[in-house]
């Protein structure tokens, strides 16, 4: 299925969860924030939130800034 990951179209396996996607992308869960279709998804929900065709997922993190 096609999903939007940080604004870019990517292919993901059907039924992949948020946790699965982060793992595949080698992103450490403790360092990121996930927004799915403009809604923040809490960490506890990542392993039981499957992604659907055309979902838009934003994976963000806090960085240094002024």
């Amino acid at each position: 299925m096609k999903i939007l990951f940080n604004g870019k179209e990517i292919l993901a396996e059907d039924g992949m969860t948020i946790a699965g996607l982060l793992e595949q992308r080698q992103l450490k869960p403790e360092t990121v924030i996930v927004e799915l279709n403009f809604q923040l998804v809490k960490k506890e929900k990542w392993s039981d939130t499957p992604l659907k065709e055309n979902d838009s997922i934003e994976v963000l993190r806090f960085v240094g800034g002024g």
Partner: protein
Amino acid sequence: MQDLFHIGGKELTSRLLLGTGKYASNQMIPQIMEASGSQVVTVAMRRVDTDFEEENILNHIPGNCVLMPNTSGARNAQEAIRIARLARAAGCGDWVKIEVISDNRYLLPDNYETIKATEVLAAEGFQVFPYMSPDLMVAKELVKVGAAAVMPLGAPIGSNRGLKTKELVRILIEEIPLPIIVDAGIGRPSEAAEAMEMGAAAILVNTAVATARDPVIMARAFGMAVEAGRAAFLAGPGAARQYASASSPLTGFLRED
């Protein structure tokens, strides 16, 4: 004398706010905070770059610091509002620095969009700290829509050019009933002290500390300068005059005349 800084629902002892960008190593941040005495830090939020593993800056920020996530990257009010909501939902508390910028050369803030974002977020219970170009009418509007403070720039972000907007900032300090925090452009401790002597409530610096040869010593220098400037403001400087006024008595010399 106890001089507490009441701001955004908190009670602080330091009037120096620090940014966390541009450090050679984020490991340095706890030392910077300690040396400066600062109790508030700004952070930004960005999309992850999967080709480049970064760490989460929050891991380097001492637990007793107040976090002020900024909305940098936002080009309009709507984007700023989205970032602010995400930061709060991610556990950053209810402070937010509104930064709406669509000009890439001077990074000057869009005052109009900043007012719009401030209004929406203040109504949602955020403590809103809008970064703005010093303009009295805009500052009055920010007061009206519920800002916690007004943060005029001293010079363009990261320029280290100092308090170029001094006269306009002075007017804001005089006319605006909210704390005025000079944000951006301050390059040297003397400039921070100058703004504090004028009655600014606080100073926010990042580049000046982060790009100093020794950021830890510079952080300490800024902490001292902000404190000195504040004390001078509270003390009330004596009047300036054109001609000399002897500091020693002019009578009782060892000669007769």
